[in-house]
């Protein structure tokens, strides 16, 4: 439909307005964190993803200024929250008199966890997210109160645990007992919600790399979550982002932690199988 030249023209206009014409001249940059950890920010799409050849991390769509925040941990504002979680990790809480460290030693023991999240939990007979695993420890092993899904200690701990998988490829299982949940998430991804009748796929599959007003659309990947959002000056979860996107279609959204969003998280995660875990990444 649109000719190439037209697209280029439109992006020149958009970029010129944003004052970063220089970005045009360059190829997509590589993400190397702390001049050490090399990230896979673009790779071949997983086999189950019929409509894309290549998957790209949200980082590749951001401005140079936003990208820079994520290239060095000293510049990454999300790390403040990771530090707070490190203290929490060692802090005894609850009737059992235990901290995370009592059972797990250091947080490095959590390496690999984020890369496979969310995943099927056999005992529970359901797909579980990071928040659910964390609260299971709090309630049943520490005999402490569960943390709210959006509470600061939950966001922080999610970021600390996710960081232990940074650089590992996302590898979410979609078959076996998780399959029906995955199918449900997939159906949601292609549902045109709200009065604007827009699906995730309309924006993030058919139009990634296009501008919608001032926003440069990404593929809506969640390998960088929880992300630090400059606008909110805090960490946010993928469920929070899903809510915002569905709300923007003039729809009734689902809530954080709902079975619908757990299914959607599984499906969207699986679309990023092969990208590096980037948490906590930084967005505007």
């Amino acid at each position, binding site marked *: *439909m649109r000719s190439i030249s*037209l697209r280029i023209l439109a992006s020149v206009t958009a970029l010129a307005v944003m004052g970063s014409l220089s970005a045009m001249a360059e190829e997509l940059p590589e993400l190397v964190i702390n001049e050490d950890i090399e990230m896979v920010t673009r790779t071949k799409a997983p086999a189950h993803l019929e409509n894309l050849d290549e998957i790209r991390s949200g980082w590749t769509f951001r401005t140079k200024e936003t990208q820079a925040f994520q290239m060095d941990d000293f510049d990454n504002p999300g790390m403040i929250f990771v530090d707070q979680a490190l203290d929490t990790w060692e802090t005894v809480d609850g009737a059992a008199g235990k901290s995370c460290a009592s059972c797990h030693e250091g947080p490095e023991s959590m390496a690999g966890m984020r890369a496979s999240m969310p995943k099927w939990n056999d005992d529970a007979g359901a797909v579980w997210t990071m928040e659910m695993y964390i609260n299971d420890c709090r309630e049943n092993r520490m005999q402490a109160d569960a943390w709210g899904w959006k509470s600061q200690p939950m966001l922080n701990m999610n970021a600390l645990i996710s960081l232990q998988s940074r650089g590992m490829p996302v590898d979410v299982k979609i078959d076996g007992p998780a399959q029906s949940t995955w199918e449900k998430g997939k159906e949601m991804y292609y549902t045109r919600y*709200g*009065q604007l009748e*827009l699906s995730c796929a*309309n924006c993030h599959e058919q139009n990634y790399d296009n501008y919608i007003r001032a926003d440069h659309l990404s593929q809506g990947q969640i390998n960088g979550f929880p992300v630090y959002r400059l606008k909110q000056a805090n960490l946010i979860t993928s469920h929070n982002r899903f809510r915002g996107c*569905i*709300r923007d279609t*003039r729809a009734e959204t689902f809530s954080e932690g709902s079975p619908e969003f757990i299914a959607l998280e599984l499906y969207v995660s699986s679309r990023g199988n092969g990208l590096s875990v980037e948490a906590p990444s930084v967005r505007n």
Partner: protein
Amino acid sequence: MRYGKLRAGATALAAAGLGAAFFGSALAAELAPQQVVYDEGKVSESLSGVPGDVEAGRKVMITRGQGNCIACHEVTALKEVPFHGEVGPTLDGAGERWSEAELRGIVANSKMTFEDSMMPSFYKVSGYIRPGNAFTGKAAKTAELPPLLTAQQIEDVVAYLLTLKE
């Protein structure tokens, strides 16, 4: 279909010069979203009965809470307004490519012209999945939603689009 007939009746009345007298002028003039008849996407009858205003249409095109058309379309004539999207085709020359009836149909309900279009239907009130109360994220308060644009706003936008000649 039922509405189609009703409208045809109303049009016949109007043609006979009886419309205004029968309904009262404002009422007779405006077509509700459910009454609009699409003929292969085209809508030949004015939705409001009042000619569109080009300047008002321009405002609808660029205003976020209204048409926000430039969120998805590039329009050279509006280039002093920042941030035009790339989701739909440029609207330059749209007034030459399409007739008034075609443009009215595209803006009122683009899906009647372009199957499965990503363009929102601006003059439609039901048939949504999880319709919300505007941008609150909460459920809609009524079974039928107010359309995204009023009949007059659509006439205004159509008048504006007709000025886009290359």
